[in-house]
């Protein structure tokens, strides 16, 4: 890592955001294990969770190196306080039913695909490599979740209603994908990664046709805003962390 000693706080934060997105959504999806509507989806959800945890490991390890304070993936994953997590709020929301789960996976994977694509030209070579490796996974998640969005949206009356309700609920949270604070400009300027807002048109272009095919109504944008990526989370986050951090908090310093 040549950047090790010259990484700016914004750079570290940018990588942490990606790592925490993967970590927290991976954690949520792993709750499904053994409880999905069909065995194939039990496996598919576990597989998506596994991919995301894998990405989180690479990204958090990289963030730890950039930070240069000796924190490894586990210290970052398990031993921060809530305010220091940088995932978008969408990823921490409870799974609720299978409909909300696949709609979320779809909306998020579309964002991740675009982000990972753009990171191919990142000035952070390690980040570019991680993104290249992860892009294939994100594409698979997108297509798998997209198929389910279509099946549910264009399925029965009930499944249509549930898919639409899930979309209505989740849509306002996606505004956060594209929100930035002034520090983020520095990241874009340094060529580390795209400005968040620049992804929005492509994201809509990726997402809307599938929602149309699913016969779902794309909700209008509202003033609703969330701030998980800036460290201000929802009430759900603390409960997720209580579970996720339990072992590390209870047995400090132990190796597993």
């Amino acid at each position, binding site marked *: 890592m040549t950047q090790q000693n010259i990484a700016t706080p914004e750079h570290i934060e940018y990588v942490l955001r990606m790592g925490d997105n993967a*970590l927290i959504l991976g*954690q949520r999806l*792993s*709750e499904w*294990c*053994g*409880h*999905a*509507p*069909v*065995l*194939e*989806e*039990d*496996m598919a959800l*576990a*597989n998506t*969770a*596994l991919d995301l*945890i*894998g990405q*989180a*490991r690479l990204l*958090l390890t990289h963030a730890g190196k950039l930070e240069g304070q000796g924190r490894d*993936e*586990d210290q970052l*994953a*398990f031993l921060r306080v809530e305010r220091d997590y940088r995932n978008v709020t969408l990823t921490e929301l409870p799974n609720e*039913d*299978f*409909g909300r789960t696949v709609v979320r996976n779809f909306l998020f994977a579309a964002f991740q695909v675009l982000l990972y694509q753009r990171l191919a030209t990142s000035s952070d070579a390690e980040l570019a490599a991680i993104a290249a490796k992860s892009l294939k996974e994100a594409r698979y998640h997108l297509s798998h979740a997209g198929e389910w969005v*279509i*099946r*549910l949206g*264009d*399925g*029965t009356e*009930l*499944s249509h209603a*549930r898919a639409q309700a899930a979309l209505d609920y989740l849509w306002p949270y996606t505004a956060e994908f594209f929100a930035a604070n002034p520090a983020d400009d520095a990241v874009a300027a340094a060529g580390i990664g795209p400005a968040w807002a620049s992804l929005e048109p492509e994201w809509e272009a990726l997402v809307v046709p599938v929602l149309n095919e699913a016969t779902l109504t794309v909700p209008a944008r509202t003033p609703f805003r969330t701030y998980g990526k800036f460290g201000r989370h929802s009430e759900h986050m603390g409960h997720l962390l209580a*579970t*996720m951090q*339990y*072992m*590390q908090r209870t*047995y400090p*310093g*132990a*190796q*597993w």
Partner: protein
Amino acid sequence: ADYQAEFDAKIDAGGFIEAKDWMPEAYRKTLVRQISQHAHSEIVGMLPEGNWITRAPSLKRKAILLAKVQDEGGHGLYLYAAAETLGVSRDELYEALLDGRAKYSSIFNYPTLTWADIGVIGWLVDGAAIMNQIPLCKCSYGPYSRAMVRICKEESFHQRQGYDLLLQMMKGTPEQREMVQDAVNRWWWPSIMMFGPHDKDSQHSETSMRWGIKRISNDDLRQKFVDATVKQAEVLGITLPDPDLKWNEARGHYDFGAIDWEEFWSTVNGHGQCNVDRIAARRKAWEEGAWVREAALEHARKQAAREKVAA
């Protein structure tokens, strides 16, 4: 009668019976029961381990556990597919599980209480499963035997990972070592019981042997397992909870204490700690997922109708 003779000859020659071959109805029934029971065990077995995924203490271990539980789902799929070659549908079999007509391995009615349980399940439970399953790789029914080859390979990988998890914990703090010992204390006897009743009390064994479905007796497999495990326990540095466990020079095997068959049968018959919760969890997932399965069917119907119109 000709068919029967041909079937018998094939079995005696150590050949494989395939789905399209004639087979005695009892043979088919036995296989359906055994394979589906095995498939159900994989599916129910996802629950006790799944219980710890969200609390896994490191990302590496979380990933390993996720992959393992996913593999178990995969084993369930191969096995249901093998059973389906015998003319029953997966949904039929699964409903028999949900309404309590079909059984699954009783070992999954014990709870996973600490992180060490995850390691011990890999080491002892998967270890015992492998002992049981290796002979099935040469089982007389082709589809089952081929599924088992694949499964055994993955299971032995899981067993090594479980053992590795325990080794790591035993190198750790006194609390971690205590946790491992506690888990071993709870899982040792149930693992031993996984080989089923003693040969003299085993209901289905004799015909299964005759048909080449079963190749080694319960007690022989159990002895093999104990012999292999004692050494691994020594390397780990834990004590197996059986004061009667000791090497018998004359037999060339380890002797071990009397099994509490009352507990075994009580658990098999529904009174283990988790029987009710396991099936309730599976039933809840199935019922709450009904609308999703219906949506998939309805969408497929719509698609087919649209394609027909287009054609």
